């Protein structure tokens, strides 16, 4: 009985050490668990697939580097899709690190022949959060007179005829914050809005998807993995899924231990059920 009670008093450091192993081992030796494609990813892929070569989209990289682990696999997969179709992308950053993240994302495409100013451009970061989104959607060139690479935006061929959100085919955003501000500011321009979100905030975006205000969403690391599968280009997302599976199983195992301990303690009539980790 005492052994069962001790199951509820495992040191946090043991939990952390086991979790590291549970995450690390599948990354080094993948299990190859099958990944089915969810309805959100399927829908989003379908929406983005309607874009044609030469179409212009605004892509807002609204995540900080801290959240990149969750959202960047989606971004990379979507970029592969859009650049592969010849879509022209106007990047903007809603976080201070946004422009730097954009530069790292476009580097391989630029090396492969995509031309800055023609196939894509990086307008940089505009302070102000939702206010910034409203501003550049209303008047892109006024909000960004100069881009991140210090070019005059009026001189960029990709921005010919693009004065704001109404002049592009689609708005795509990737964020670790909420999707409300994008829906609030962009719906009025009547263009499809597609978003990549972290797991935690995706339930908040569901009503917008149901209402048609968001054309599609990608949810967390799994969304990125599913998109990679649809693109037939498995990457970091797919590689991380096995680790996620093992991590979840480990946490469930600890929850079971904790409850066995709790029930054993209650049965033994011990006072207090606060046998927490130290």
């Amino acid at each position: 009985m005492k052994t069962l009670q001790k199951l509820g008093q495992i040191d946090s450091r043991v939990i952390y050490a086991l979790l590291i192993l549970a995450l690390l081992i599948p990354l080094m030796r993948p299990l190859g668990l099958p990944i089915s494609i969810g309805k959100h990813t399927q829908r989003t892929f379908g929406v983005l697939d309607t874009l044609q070569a030469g179409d212009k989209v605004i892509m807002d990289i609204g995540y900080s580097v801290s959240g990149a682990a969750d959202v960047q696999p989606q971004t990379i997969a979507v970029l592969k899709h859009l650049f592969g179709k010849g879509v022209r992308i106007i990047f903007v950053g809603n976080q201070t690190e946004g422009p730097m993240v954009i530069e790292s994302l476009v580097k391989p495409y630029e090396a492969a022949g995509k031309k800055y100013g023609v196939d894509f451009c990086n307008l940089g970061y505009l302070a102000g959060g939702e206010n910034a989104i409203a501003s550049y959607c209303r008047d892109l060139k006024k909000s960004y007179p100069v881009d991140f690479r210090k070019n005059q935006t009026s001189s960029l061929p990709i921005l010919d005829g693009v004065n704001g959100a109404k002049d592009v085919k689609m708005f795509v955003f990737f964020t670790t914050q909420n999707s409300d501000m994008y829906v609030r500011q962009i719906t009025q321009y009547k263009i499809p809005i597609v978003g990549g979100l972290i797991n935690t905030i995706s339930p908040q975006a569901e009503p917008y998807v149901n209402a048609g205000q968001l054309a599609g969403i990608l949810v967390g690391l799994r969304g990125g993995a599913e998109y990679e599968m649809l693109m037939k280009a498995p990457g970091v997302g797919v590689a991380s899924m096995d680790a996620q599976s093992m991590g979840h199983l480990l946490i469930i195992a600890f929850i079971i231990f904790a409850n066995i301990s709790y029930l054993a303690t209650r049965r033994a009539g011990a006072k207090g059920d606060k046998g927490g980790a130290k």
Partner: protein
Amino acid sequence: MFVAGRVAGLVTVLAAFAFVLLGLSFARKRPMRMRPIPGLLAVEEAVGRATEMGKPIFYSPGYADVAGTTAPPTLAGLNLLAHVGRLAARYNTRLVVTVGHANTYALATEILRNSYIVEGKVDQFDIGNIYFTSDVQFAYTAATVGLIQREKPATVFLTGYFAAEAIVLAEAAAATQSLSISGTTNYFQIPFFMAACDYTMIGEEFLAAGAFISNNPDLIGSVAGQDYVKILGILALLLGAVMKSFGNNVIFDLLKR
């Protein structure tokens, strides 16, 4: 005249304004009671715990600004800070505060100074106990976790705007065996606070903290007005659900206008 798609929103906002003003007028005529909020009832106990243990109180209203969408929870956090500051001054307990934005720092400093002045303990006020960490989310988190681990407070207040750092801060508090009281309107983080903290104020409970503590009739009246709006919302929801179930889309179409 009206922007398409926003008429329902306008009507809702006007109704909210009207009901809040109604609540204000009722509250000024006769006293209104608020239901007890466990997290707020525990504040005095929490400060007392720190005083008895001879350890500091740790407070953070989050890393966000007092402007924009993060303003209401940050301001609510600062309101509660004023109250906790007064208690800390009264019981001569050290209060350590971290904020993550320059504007919030300026307000927190002034609010705390006022709290100490009101208690007649202005000489005890030490601006060195208020830390302005970076406004970068995880830099703020790192600084706050470090401070909690070094200061080993008896009580930790995490009441304001928090995002992904919520669980990290709450666990840092738990690791030092502190009593933790949390409150935020960011409902993605509420489950994490519920799991890791001793007391959690959910959404509007936290926004109503100022009214509950101050017992100010105007604030209580506005909270009452908000409740009237919610009752109206519930009625519309129920009516809409029943009507939609019978194939009638009137409410549904009205809300889309």
